[in-house]
């Protein structure tokens, strides 16, 4: 899933400083699963903003809504009625940053703000802890490395690791980061495939990644 976290409340308060009425829109997709922008988080943020503004004697009206997803146009269409029937000063999205862009793309007459920082593609290591697992390089090669990704999970994205900074299973960048090359070694050993690591992995073609510019996938069989 896409993992995100809420922006600092002061940053969001500064965004809405001049507004009297806003629409705060959550998303039931990834950001609900990572507890950043689902219905509950929309409620908490709305409440915090209202408390802060009421305290200043400058109340703000906030309508709350959570869409099925904010990365599909048909759900973004559901904002049409509320936007038509209310005089909102702005829309604040609690989706990953795809959401506010989809809203801005669909409605050209309303200001749109992100309330989350979109961080990475990852998963939950335990309840309340998420880690990065994939960088979306566009050409997955993890099967060469025991199923672990050296691009997203090695601080230097080394294809032929480890580097000299690997110590006791930890990365030299921080004792909080597992050295993925240590994990790759352990796993390949376990699988009886250590000899595969003797091969030098060729330079990766990054054109499938961001180096080729913004990417697009077209499925002719699905297109209307």
């Amino acid at each position, binding site marked *: 899933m896409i993992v995100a976290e809420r922006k600092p409340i*002061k940053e969001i308060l500064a965004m809405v400083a001049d507004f009297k009425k806003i629409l705060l829109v959550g998303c039931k997709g990834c950001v609900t699963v990572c507890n950043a922008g689902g219905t509950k988080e929309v409620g908490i943020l709305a*409440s*915090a903003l209202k408390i802060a503004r009421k305290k200043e004697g400058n109340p703000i009206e906030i309508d709350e809504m959570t869409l099925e997803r904010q990365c599909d146009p048909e759900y973004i269409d559901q904002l049409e009625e509320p936007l038509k029937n209310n005089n909102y000063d702005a829309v604040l999205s609690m989706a990953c940053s795809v959401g506010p862009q989809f809203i801005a793309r669909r409605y050209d007459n309303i200001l749109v703000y992100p309330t989350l920082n979109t961080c990475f593609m990852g998963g939950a290591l335990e309840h309340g802890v998420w880690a990065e697992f994939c960088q979306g390089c566009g050409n997955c090669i993890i099967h060469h490395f025991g199923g672990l990704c050296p691009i997203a999970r090695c601080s230097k994205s080394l294809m032929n690791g480890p580097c000299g900074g690997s110590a006791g299973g930890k990365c030299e960048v921080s004792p909080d980061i597992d050295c993925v090359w240590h994990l790759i070694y352990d796993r390949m050993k376990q699988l009886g495939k250590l000899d595969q690591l003797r091969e030098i992995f060729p330079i990766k073609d990054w054109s499938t990644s961001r180096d080729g510019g913004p990417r697009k996938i077209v499925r002719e069989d699905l297109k209307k």
Partner: protein
Amino acid sequence: MPDFEPKIILFYCQFCPDKGINSACASNISMPSNFRKIRIPCTGTVDILHLMHALEAGADGVFVLACKEGDCHNETGNIKAQKRITYVRKLMEDIGLEPERVGIYYFNSSQGPSLKNITQEILEKISELGPSPLGLSEAA
């Protein structure tokens, strides 16, 4: 602020704290009238939103009365409540509302008489802070 009568919302667990409150009543120690008590199945059910909405509605203080560590009938309800309170206090700090308006106390059935100390401490703390800027006390 001589006329200030703090409005306190108190969520309390149906197990140890409930028994403690009953045993306090049996010893003629009652909950001050400005405490609005809300009995809940476990303090683990107290949600961040419940605490926020109580503050938003203008409560001067919002507190949770939980079973002591290790006594929770659902094992970790009181620990979850503590973590949520920490979260709300941080949020309050960020928006400039006194975090001391929210808190947790641990209380069990054998501690009936200490209920008075807890309510007294809460009242003193909130009286010192004064009415919530969100105004329930003023409106009352």
